[in-house]
Each structure stands twice: as C-alpha cells, then as structure tokens.
C-alpha cells in the first residue's frame, strides 16, 4: 500500500472519533432533558454544567478531527 492511500484510510479512521463525540454530545443533552423534564424548576440552574459537559464531550471529537486534518495536510 502506498503512503497516500494509507493516509486517506488513516484520516477516515480518525473520522470515527468525530462520530463517537456525537454520541457523547447527544448523551449530555439527552440526559439533561430527561432530568429537566422531571424537575423543570432546577433545570435553569444547571445550564452552566450542561455546557461544561457539552464542551468536554465535544472537545474530544474535535481533537479527532484535528488528527484527521493533520494526517491529510501536514504529514508528508
């Protein structure tokens, strides 16, 4: 296998991580909504924590994206 095809396959594999982050982000918002519907009064106070969880889950997917970009455009 030549290097270019190996790079393409590697970048495609790195893209799986972005999909995993989608699961994580969906889980964060889904769980929040589940809790918020049970106790709507407490929901507004937890919005900061909601976005912290969102940011942490999203960051790992974005790092996977960065890895894909690095493989495609930077690695020679």
């Amino acid at each position: 296998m030549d290097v270019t095809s190996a790079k393409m396959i590697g970048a495609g594999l790195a893209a799986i991580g972005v999909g995993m982050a989608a699961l994580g982000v969906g889980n964060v918002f889904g769980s929040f909504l589940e809790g918020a519907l049970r106790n709507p009064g407490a929901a507004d106070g937890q919005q900061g924590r909601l976005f912290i969880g969102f940011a942490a889950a999203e960051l790992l997917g974005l790092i996977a994206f960065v890895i894909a970009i690095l493989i495609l455009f930077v690695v020679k």
Partner: protein
Amino acid sequence: MQYKQREATRVAAEGPGIDPMHQFKVEPLFGHHLTLGGYDISFTNSALFMVIVLGVLWAFMLGGMKRQLVPGRWQAAVEGMTGFISNMMDTNIGPKGRKFTPYVFSLFMFILFANLIGLVPLGIVPGWHPFTVTSHITLTAVLAFFSFAIVILVGFAKHGLHFFSLFVPHGTPWYIAILVAPIEFMSFLVRPFSLGLRLFVAMTAGHILLDVFASFVVQGLNSGGPMGWVVSLLSFIMIIGVSALELLVSAIQAYVFALLTSLYLNDAINLH
C-alpha cells in the same frame, strides 16, 4: 503567489477538485507584502476582518449605551447581553468576580461577532471573500493565553504559593494526593490549548463543511444533466441546514469560551 502556482499545477494534474482549505488563506489585502526588518507587516484580510468586527461591535455597543430610562429595542439588546454575562459571572464566581466581568464580556462579544461576521455571505459581492478570524488558532490561542495568564496572575497575587493547593482537591488522603496532583497539574496546563483549540476547530470544521457543499452545488450544475441538478438542489438545501447549525455553533462556542474562562477564574479567585 507560490500558492497560486501550486494550485495551477494541482488543477492541471487532477482537474478542478474541491479545495476547502483555500478560504482560510491569510493574504495581504492589495496583493503585495510589506516587510519591515524581516517581518511581514502587511495588512491582511484577517486584520481587515478583525477591524470590521471591532467596528460592528463598537457601533452595536455605542448605539445601546444611551442610558435611556425606558430602554428602546437597541438598548434592551445590549442590556440583554451585558446582563447575560454578568449573571453568568455572579453564579460561577460570586461577588468577587465582578471585577472580571468587563474582560469576559469583551471576550464573549468579540468571539460572537467574529463568528457571526464570518458567516455573512459576503462572497456574493464580486471581489470579496468572507473570512472568519476565529478559524485561526493564532487568534484563538492568543485569547486563550490571555485568559490563562489572568488566571495565573490573579491566583498567585491573591493566594501566593497557596495557589498550588489547587492541584490537591480538598480532603484528599496523602497517598491519593500523590497520584492526583500530577493529573490535576497536567489538566491545568492543557487548559489554554483546549480552550483555543475548541473554538478554532469548531469554526474551521463548519466552514469546511459549507465549502464542500457549496462546491457540490457548482459542480452539480456544471455537470449538465438532471442527476447533477438533483445533487445540486439537495446540496443547496443542506447548505441552508448547515448554515443554521453554524449560527447555533457560533453562539455556543462564544458562550463556552466565556463560561470556561469564568470557571478558570473561579478556581483562581476562590480556589476549591
């Protein structure tokens, strides 16, 4: 210039493909570089858009700071923004954090306006290319390092060497503290990078996606056939959806940046 040659050879070799990274190219505005003492100091499109962001931000704030007793719509919009950030600072830090509200507010507004202005479809004006300044890590990393530097300065100024107790959570037994302290230290050091990286990558990824779908529209129309027109139409609908998502991401990323800055400031001011 070098880029254009490379692009020409690439097009000659592979045919006109999709080049989604071209939109992030930082170029001097009038085509020639201005150098001073070996440094390139030319006024780039990035600098131009930062000035535009500053101008719009200024106009927005000054228009709403007339201090009318009964606020009009504009003043209500500005007060909504300031109230949102000062409320966030109060809940996350408490009254001691009020000093830092102007900094976090400027950060939030600059990032929000830069993200939104990068989404304005300026490309329909001939000769104009929209540019998102927050899609470059050079800018987001500087903003993140500002926040990190303020956290460190405030932490050491307020608590002195006691600031290091940040790395040992309260009530940890010593044998666990030996394990936990290095991990906490590493996570503390990674903060500015994750803060800058998150904003930069979120904006870059969205714009690449928009560019790819926009290329599909053009290529579908050029292919000249009913199949191409269907692809073109579907891609156009997709662009509308992704643009709406990008508006949401612009606001969320600006909010997350401000929120995390306020949390890190809370660590420095109140320890934990």
